């Protein structure tokens, strides 16, 4: 249980990128009426930013 939780918190930045940052980007774009580039949906664009950003934070230990 402890090991599972430890792993969960280790991958949490990645999950945060997918679970929160991606929809936040998509909904912020919708609020300001900004279209996603290359004909993508806003949520796909949000995931394209949020997932790698979260992965970067998970591996590097820093968001920036």
């Amino acid at each position: 249980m402890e090991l599972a939780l430890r792993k969960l918190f280790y991958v949490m930045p990645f999950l945060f990128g997918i679970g929160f940052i991606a929809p936040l980007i998509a909904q912020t774009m919708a609020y300001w009426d900004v279209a996603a580039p290359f004909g993508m949906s806003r949520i796909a664009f949000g995931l394209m930013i949020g997932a790698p950003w979260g992965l970067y934070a998970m591996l590097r230990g820093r968001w920036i």
Partner: protein
Amino acid sequence: MALDGMAGEAHLLAREGAEHDTRARSPGGAAIPLLGPDGLDRHVRRDLRKQEIAVARQFMGGRMWPYVVAAWGCFAVWLSFFPLAVMHWLNLPLAFVLSCIFATGGYVTSHEAMHSNIARPNSRHYWINEWVGKVSTIPIVFPFSMARLMHLEHHYHCNDPQKDPDYSDEAPSALKAWYKTWYNRQPGVDGSIHAYKRILAEMGTPEAAKALRDTLKLQLLFMAVLFAMAWGGYAIEAALIWWLPRHVGLSYIRFYLSWAPHHPREGRTGRYENTKVFKSRLGHVLSMGMETHLVHHLYPNIPNHRTKEAYFALKPILAQRGVDTSSL
């Protein structure tokens, strides 16, 4: 730390005497009492301490119900933001500002509860104290059990680089201190709540284990709420009610409650030097009473709203003890 009754006073005075006696009996020491590091002999120190305790006693306790009303009222209002946001009945900019205030101010009410200043452990109203503490720090995702343990460790080992859990807030300037409040929250940095979790794991006591469990539960709840709201179409609402106010609150708290009153920390572990008296640009209220935080470290049972008044009453004695009182 609490000075309950004459036993507390006698204990404090005895400690002061013992500290001095140890110095006097050191090898090569003189038979007569030696001067302490503040240039005062043991009799003067003991006399000043007696006066200090007598003055401090006048400011302990008082009306604490406003803390209860503030803690529970603000928490209830903050909680109501979530359903109101989902029903589109919320002014989001206003809710954001209020959430930032609740997240920041919640630490003040919780802080009183950490020291059992709202009700003492043997009181039948103690549950009120505990529930003030528990709800106050939920907006900053900082469980009361952890907050209390870490804060008491901070008091016991103030400015000790190894043992003070807040030592990682130290920075050479105010600007760098603001930056560090953010930097310490990064996932791979051993500062802030990450350091607290490590310290709790190292403590190994049942209380520490419970605090660690509470922290994991609250952090998981926080993430679950953010993810559920975000994927349910309320990401902006979740960001403005909880995510951003938490960051604003934590940075403000870290700066004003940790860095400002304790900087510079290095080598300042003594009773009268581990906290400084300072003049805040934002004033006493907006700096959450931290200008006179020294009084809190000397007498944690003096509630936050009375530390300024207590400071001015104690000022002549503190000046004699070597405290720099020039700024206030």
